[in-house]
């Protein structure tokens, strides 16, 4: 197992390298010459050239990339054009709400979608199954922010059960924290639930048609044990794979959800940065999220060995 884990970890390094190259190219290709901006309107071409040399902007692409990569590895993501603050610092300030939203959404989505899929597979063709499939298709089709508005309008504005927007830090208590994040988490989770319920159902259908499930039924194992021990455990590998891959959609959805519910997280940061064309911030956030995404999928790969000890490649 350790050999497998080490091999998987090493395999992510080239992927991260390529991601870094893409993200660096983003800033490299960004319109606007930083040297000219710093030099100001009065500067002569010679001044601009001097500033460019002092910033090291005249060196070849590869040299600049490696230097940037070294800085990133040391936790330096550059400086925001707009606020002049280090990007790493800005992200750190905003990470808690985003992290909270993600964790709550994942917990909520998995604890809903997986049982939904299991029940749908168990009652295949019955009304429960059809209902789950309808919910799944709808979840794919309605954009996250629309779900957000519908929820906010119904449960916050009309019924006044939850706050309309904003964020309460977890240090202010678990109750207010969950209360504030409940609607955003449901909105963000809608598409994820659809995806996960569908995959769970499909995988469970396949597992439930296996011979050992028939044997278990024949010897009188009760339904719950068949579904959750014989069934779900063997369906776990595709399910966690989709959880990992679906994480990308979750990140994209978080950016929008934070805008709808005015949550001061990393998603808001990047939306504000787009409007101001603050390239270092956009670059830093994209890099950070891609890194998280790769790490999550690495974690999923490592989880395989827990669910299926036969996996040893």
């Amino acid at each position, binding site marked *: 197992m350790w050999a497998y884990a080490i091999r998987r970890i090493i395999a992510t390094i*080239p*992927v*991260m*390298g*390529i*991601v870094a*190259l*893409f*993200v660096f190219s*983003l800033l490299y*290709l*960004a*319109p606007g010459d930083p040297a000219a901006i710093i030099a100001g309107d009065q500067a002569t071409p010679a001044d601009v050239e001097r500033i460019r040399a002092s910033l090291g902007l005249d060196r070849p692409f590869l040299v600049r990339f490696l230097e940037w990569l070294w800085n990133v590895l040391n936790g330096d993501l550059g400086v925001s054009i707009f606020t002049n603050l280090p990007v790493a610092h800005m992200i750190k300030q905003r990470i808690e709400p985003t992290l909270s939203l993600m964790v709550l959404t994942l917990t909520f989505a998995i604890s809903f979608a997986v049982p939904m899929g299991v029940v749908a597979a168990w009652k295949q063709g019955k009304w429960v199954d059809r209902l789950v499939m309808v919910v799944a*298709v*709808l979840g*794919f*089709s*309605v*954009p*996250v*922010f*629309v779900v957000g*508005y519908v929820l906010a*309008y119904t449960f916050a*504005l009309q019924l006044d059960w939850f706050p*309309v927007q904003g964020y309460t830090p977890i240090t202010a208590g678990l109750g207010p924290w969950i209360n504030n994040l409940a609607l955003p988490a449901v909105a963000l989770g809608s598409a994820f639930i659809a995806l996960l319920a*569908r*995959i769970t159902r*499909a995988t469970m*259908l*396949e597992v439930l048609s296996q011979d050992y499930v028939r044997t278990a039924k024949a010897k009188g194992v009760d339904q719950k044990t068949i579904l959750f021990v014989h069934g779900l455990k063997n369906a776990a590998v595709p399910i966690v794979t989709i959880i990992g891959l679906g*994480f*990308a*959609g979750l*990140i*994209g*959805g978080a*950016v*929008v959800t934070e*805008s*709808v519910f005015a949550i001061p997280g990393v998603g808001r940061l*990047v*939306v504000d940065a*787009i*409007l101001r*064309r603050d*390239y270092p911030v*956009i*670059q830093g*956030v*994209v890099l950070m*999220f*891609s890194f998280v*995404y*790769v790490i999550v*999928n690495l974690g999923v790969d490592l989880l395989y060995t827990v669910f299926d000890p036969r996996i040893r490649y």
Partner: protein
Amino acid sequence: MSTTTMGITAAPDLGEVLPPRKQRGKIGMFIYRHPTIFVGGLLLFIILCIGVFAPLLFTTDPTALAPARRTRAPNAQYWFGTDMLGRDVYSRVLYGTRISLIVGFSVAVVASVVGMFIGLTSGFIRQVDAIVMRVMDGLQSIPGILLAIALMALTRASVENVIVAIAVTQVPPVSRLVRSVVLSLREQPYVEAAVAAGTRMPVIIIKHILPNTLAPVSVQATFICASAMLTEATLSFIGAGTPPIIPSWGNIMAEGRALWQVKPYIVFFPAAFLSVTVLAVNLLGDGLRDALDPRLAKRI
């Protein structure tokens, strides 16, 4: 009917034993066998008509400003109300149909064509395969919307750039799909036979491999179309998509955002249209997958 000869009863006609079979025409049979294709296709056709015939459907100029009549609730004259600049939301939503459809279809076509080219190349040429697939790994490791945001930040806002930015995020899955089909087809006896018979590589690719990738790719393309429409709306909603002067559903919702608590209809109508359109395309995709790729249908 049953005639008795020497005490033996002849078998009754089948018509008496079996329940009468419902007679369906060709179209009826198609609807019966593929209800999702029918429903999705019909919805999509209606939406397509709305987009094409938007000028004829009692719309006015979707960009005409009229501050005097701003933020009217839906009424007999302004069916979906007016926005904060007094523009007719009904006209804007109907014209917005065009943007969504154009973006959805274009992204699906561009991503499929590019993805097929990359997939075929990397499936056949080993040296290219290793490099191209690592690049695809990298591209796929950047969450789609963020990649599109980053690409949009680099260029000026235009519908073409939105299409390119979204297509880039959709190329890796298509090329991966095509590559996997190519890898399994390459080992098929009929391809080996063609190679043994001295058929040239380009002919093998075009005549024997390409047609077999069309079914899975067209299923994938339908889902790409749906997801591209959602992404376009999302990008426009956060201000990184279609330029604000063009009425797209995402833009209308972005403009309604400031007022959604008091004037929810500005967000509601484009949201409803977008959801129904995406639903139609998704239904079509589900149906196509069941019809064209039964093996895949069992999986998902």
